[in-house]
């Protein structure tokens, strides 16, 4: 078998055009990375977002803006409140004729509008916090450090936060008498701010049309009415947290009538929507061009043998045809994996160098995953091309079949030609599912956004999507092996 692999390797590297093809694949991939990086003017967090977004403890860029009525809390303490009501208004998106948006009629809060209790390390955006809240339509939640979200009872209106040492425990109740524990969150000791807050994500509608998807949205204002408030003691002061970062946000207000507090404002405490901004995997979008070039090589690797009659020599030397196919697959997969690795690494480095860190952040492990994943995707797709080339024995048709199987479903889904539900389905069953290895933006259950392929979200996890491509390739190889044995060369 080793001799066979060496024979196939010699065949591959002794054709100058194929080595040139490998070089072209790398160049194209880097070239597209340059175009993608240079043509980016969007920002993470959408237009108008500031350059340095606050970060959660793990580096996730976050939004941290809310209307906060607070008292200082030095050590341990307990806060209790009843959220009498949470309502909301959506604002129309601003238009050239109407720069200041008007409020829309309906008064249902956004699903993730929030009103409740919070203990936060100061009022600087991005500082640690723990909060228990009533939401628009997701019941009571305990959230901390922006990325952690824990569900509580659905219909409770009474909230309590108890701080003991380095832990904050949240309770919820329907009547203010019988309390159930929602959960607890770690929070450093020391003097912090504690009180009630209101926030609501902007109102967004995703309009999908053939050729693209756009986000149509205006701001939103939530109004929370609180009573039965007990805090650590001292004067209540209102802070519009994070207002400096988003000048378009409606101004937060707080009014007090007797023991009833009404807080009104926008903003949100949550991870940013990663789908609409620049993403790291965009620098690897040349992968499909590299894949097209290498798929041509994969097809030629077998069809040229038929064209030149070389295949008869090959089979005379190695009568076991399945072993020949296996050796070809190993050589081709290995070579194209190496080429893909070089191309993807270069593309990522060049793209990052041009664009700076203006992309949704990805840790080192994710970066390794998308580079190695892209190389593996290219390698397996090239072996698929080899198998289809063996089945069809005609190069032109085989190249078209591979490109159409892998690229077209991706284009139809990611360019939003197909509706999101169909696109999800297409990216589950076609080899294009393997592009999931490039996804860097995470899905957050506590953030409403369009988790569709058009925004870079794949229905399958990275390994799952890659497995779909592998299954297609395995099937094609099995058919190719069976046909090789049955047909004359």
């Amino acid at each position: 078998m080793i001799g066979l692999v060496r024979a196939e390797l010699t065949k591959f590297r002794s054709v100058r055009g194929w080595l040139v093809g490998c070089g072209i694949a790398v160049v194209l991939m880097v070239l597209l990375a340059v175009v993608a990086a240079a043509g980016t003017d969007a920002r993470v967090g959408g237009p108008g977002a500031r350059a340095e977004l606050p970060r959660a403890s793990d580096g996730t860029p976050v939004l941290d803006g809310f209307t906060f009525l607070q008292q200082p809390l030095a050590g341990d303490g307990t806060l209790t409140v009843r959220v009498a009501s949470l309502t909301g208004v959506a604002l129309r998106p601003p238009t050239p004729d109407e720069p200041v948006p008007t409020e829309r009629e309906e008064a249902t809060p956004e699903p993730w509008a929030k009103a409740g209790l919070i203990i936060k390390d100061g009022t600087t955006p991005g500082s640690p916090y723990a909060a228990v809240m009533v939401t628009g339509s997701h019941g009571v939640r305990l959230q901390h450090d922006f990325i952690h979200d824990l569900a509580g009872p659905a219909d409770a209106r009474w909230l309590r936060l108890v701080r003991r040492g380095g832990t904050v425990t949240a309770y919820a109740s329907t009547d203010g008498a019988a309390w159930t524990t929602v959960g607890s969150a770690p929070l450093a000791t020391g003097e912090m701010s504690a009180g009630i807050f209101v926030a609501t994500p902007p109102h967004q509608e995703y309009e999908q049309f053939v050729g693209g998807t756009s986000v149509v949205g205006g701001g939103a204002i939530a109004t929370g009415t609180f009573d039965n408030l007990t805090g650590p003691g001292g004067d209540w002061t209102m802070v519009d947290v994070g207002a400096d970062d988003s000048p378009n946000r409606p101004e937060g207000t707080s009014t007090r009538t007797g023991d009833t507090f009404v807080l009104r404002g926008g903003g949100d405490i949550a991870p940013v929507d990663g789908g609409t901004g620049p993403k790291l995997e965009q620098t690897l979008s040349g992968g499909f061009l590299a894949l097209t070039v290498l798929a041509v090589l994969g097809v030629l690797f077998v069809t040229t043998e038929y064209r030149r009659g070389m295949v008869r020599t090959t089979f005379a030397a190695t009568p076991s045809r399945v072993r020949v196919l296996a050796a070809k697959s190993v050589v081709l997969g290995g070579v194209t994996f190496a080429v893909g690795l070089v191309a993807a690494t270069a593309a990522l480095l060049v793209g990052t160098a041009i664009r700076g860190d203006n992309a949704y952040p990805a840790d080192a492990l994710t970066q390794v995953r998308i580079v190695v994943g892209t190389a593996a995707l290219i390698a397996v797709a090239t072996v698929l091309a080899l198998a289809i080339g063996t089945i069809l024995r005609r190069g032109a048709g085989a190249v078209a079949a591979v490109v159409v199987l892998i690229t077209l479903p991706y284009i139809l889904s990611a360019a939003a030609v197909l509706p999101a539900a169909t696109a999800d389905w297409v990216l589950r069953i076609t080899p294009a599912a393997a592009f999931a290895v490039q996804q860097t933006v995470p899905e957050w259950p506590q953030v409403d956004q369009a988790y569709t392929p058009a925004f870079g979200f794949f229905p399958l996890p990275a390994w799952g999507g890659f497995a779909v491509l592998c299954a297609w390739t395995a099937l094609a190889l099995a058919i190719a092996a069976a046909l090789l044995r049955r047909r004359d060369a």
Partner: protein
Amino acid sequence: MRSALYAEWTKLRTTAGPFWLVVLAAVLTTALSAVAARAVSCAATGCGVDAPLVALTGVQLGQAVVAVLAVMVVGDEYRTGMIRTTLAATPSRAILLGAKSLVVAGATLAAAVPGVLGAWLAGRLIMPGRGFTAEHGYAPLSLTDGGTLRAFAGSALYLTLVALLSLGIAAAVRDAPTGVGVVLGVLYMAPILVAVVSDPDWVRRLRQIMPSDAGTAILHTVDLPSLPIGPWPGLGVLALWSAGALLLGGLLLRLRDA
């Protein structure tokens, strides 16, 4: 010229591949269009879906088959060595490429016309059941409507121009698999580029010059002013690409030995 044309027609007619590719192109165009028509839905008035454009989604697939057909008309001659006989019979490279262009255009139209008509039929039959009804402001797709007729007739022209582009590229690279790779790379690159580039000026420029994106402007029927390029100028851009590819192919055919 007539004898060259006759010779090319005979070659195309007497090999099995082109016939099946014509059938395949028509069937796949109709099939993907039917799938897309089945997938979209319109919930209310003003859902903003361009119904003829959806019904023509199959063109995205049909163009790949058409490209294979056109590339093989040249690529197969190089594969089998037939090209030497052909050039011996028709020494003028210009006349040869002209004859091949006409035959390829004819064969493509033979695939495109039934394919596009099938897409129209699929759209007309399926889309009313998906909410594209008179209440939501959609009349059944009718070829007597100016915009719809332009989209459907234009997509047949689009496929023909793609075939000519492929023919030119094939004459330049002289190898069928490579030719198909180049053509499909060029055609499918545009939507991926547009998806990753976010600067609106760049997107606009890309969509004006990329052959598939500018060419498919002809498929649009609604909100034409918002397109980066008009339907007919867009098809003109694709025609320029095709002419350029044929010129390059013809030049290389003349300069190189077969």
